[in-house]
């Protein structure tokens, strides 16, 4: 996994509540078999003008298209972010577009896990704190420090929390699968207890 220790970057705000994964990456783009190349389709139905052919014309008023927000790597957003479909493609699309951190009021359980697995930080902050962050200008850099669990802006500091186990994995960039393989004995013990119980007559 890609480690996350400190990230410095600029912000863009998309303050709608309940943005779901169908909005983040519409299903029409789920058919690729790679993890890369999804950035082009991030917020596809919101980012582009309808019906435009390649190269597609962007909707100027959509926040991600503002000239002073280009290169933003921290997304500030509303409550209940990324509910709906479990598609990890939503994280891959955010990542491919350039986001390393998403700050929302809350996250769906599945998205939260998907983001951590990809070394992308999903941080919950209050509406007031997010409002302050959303007021930052396009060229104002902020710092997200996972070691101290702090967000530092030119004007304020905000604390955030993350489960200790995940913090350790993110800081160390630890590969989950390699770590789990150390539990081979426990895995085998479960299998020897239950495999026979679940045995079925295979119809061949």
């Amino acid at each position: 996994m890609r480690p996350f220790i400190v990230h410095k970057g600029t912000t863009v705000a998309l303050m709608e509540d309940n943005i779901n994964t169908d909005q983040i990456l519409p299903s029409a783009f789920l058919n690729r078999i790679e993890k890369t190349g999804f950035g082009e389709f991030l917020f596809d139905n919101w980012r582009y003008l309808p019906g435009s052919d390649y190269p597609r014309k962007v909707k100027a008023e959509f926040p991600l298209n503002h000239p002073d927000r280009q290169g933003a790597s921290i997304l500030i957003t509303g409550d209940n972010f990324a509910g709906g479909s479990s598609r990890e493609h939503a994280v891959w699309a955010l990542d491919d577009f350039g986001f390393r951190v998403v700050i929302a009021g809350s996250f769906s359980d599945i998205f939260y896990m998907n983001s951590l697995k990809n070394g992308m930080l999903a941080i919950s902050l209050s509406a007031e704190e997010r409002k302050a962050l959303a007021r930052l200008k396009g060229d104002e850099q902020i710092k997200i420090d996972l070691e101290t669990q702090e967000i530092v802006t030119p004007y304020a500091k905000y604390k955030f929390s993350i489960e200790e186990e995940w913090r350790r994995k993110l800081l160390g960039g630890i590969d989950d699968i390699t770590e789990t393989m150390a539990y081979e004995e426990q895995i085998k013990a479960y299998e020897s207890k239950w495999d026979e119980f679940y045995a079925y007559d295979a119809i061949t």
Partner: protein
Amino acid sequence: MGQTLFDKVWQEHVLAGEEGNAQLLYIDLHMIHEVTTPQGFESLRSEGRQLRAPEKTIATIDHNVPTKNIFTIKDAISRKQIEALQRNCRDFGVELMDHGSEGQGIVHMIGPEQGATQPGKTVVCGDSHTATHGAFGAIAFGIGSSEVEHVFATQTIWQRKPKIMGIKLTGKLQAGVYAKDIMLYLIHTYGTDFATGYAIEYYGEAVSDLSMEGRMTLCNMAIEFGAKYGLVAPDQKTFDYLEGKPRAPKDFKRAVAYWKTLYTDPDADFDYVLEVSIDDLAPYVTWGTTPAMGLPFGEKFPQVSDHNDQRAYEYMDLRPQMDATDIPISYIFLGSCTNSRLEDLIEGAKYIKGRKVAPHISAWVVPGSRPVKRAAEAMGIAQQYIDAGFEWREPGCSACISMNADRVPPGTHCASTTNRNFEGRQGKGSRTHLCSPAMAVLAAVKGHFYDTRLDDQEVPVL
């Protein structure tokens, strides 16, 4: 203190870790499909890892399937994704309900139909509607592709135990009201993120009264309520459903004896309890762009209360104070992992009553699986739909996800038995109205939404 059903199943699967932190769980059943697995298989190859338990993995092809001419997949990228799964199943020894085969269907149909979904198991799938399998008393949840890869390699997953919400349903559903309406009611009343962080156990007399199909609908939509898990304690209906299924345990008696221990102890505590009487529950139809934007039939659409409502009304091209009968529907979609089981198709067919699909409406029936399709054909149900002017299609996710050729055209209002009415969900610009199969079929033959309770009284059942 006693344990909940969830506690019991969870505890049996914990291999490492302490409660309150991430714990390592063994996974008994891994359902897979073509969309969320190619990356995981590719990583196994590049890391030189094996699939640890191919015999605990079942594959199907569902999301990309065009349900009209299933072998004509025009999109080359979709075809490549299907071929990738076929190759991966061959290479790693996974049983595949292949494209066009008799076992093919939506991934959440296959587990129960094969008898692979069982009480007390842990079931995962790279799909948020995996909670469906919880209807059998399993801990079943949707995972991302990185987690799919982890399960491939280790047959385990790291999870933090969720809090547990008990939802007690008392009373009896009126004729014309269904499990789907219970979920739309709960989500409308409490919100789409009400159960985030929780596993839901549904219990009470109204849950016992539901068929396995109805229970699957309840559990399926736990995710629209925010919960990753929904479950129901197994009972005789569960055991009867599973007996004789291909993957049911060989020693079925012993299995039933164990399954009978899987219930929430009387002295166990839930973290949160919601008690709802469904006696007076009305059928639901959604007007907006989240499953919470629904209303009991007959109520007027609400005033705009915030920017979310405003945006939804604009997208849907509807206005406050309209009601469901005013929605200009021209598409009907009866399908999806929420409501395309045999019982759903039977229940829907009851509302045809010799009538025809209204001339301005395109109505599709997409059975959840080929076994459901065959059974409905054998029973004569399929013919009833066809005679009434419905398109009778092949199984798949179809227009619920619109990854395939099956899409609701832009600007079109669709009465849909699916689970998500998000912007663009059924196709770019599509406008989805969630409802039960009965409501969808009645809308097709009436030409507009109509109260399923009234229709029952007005037309004698033949």
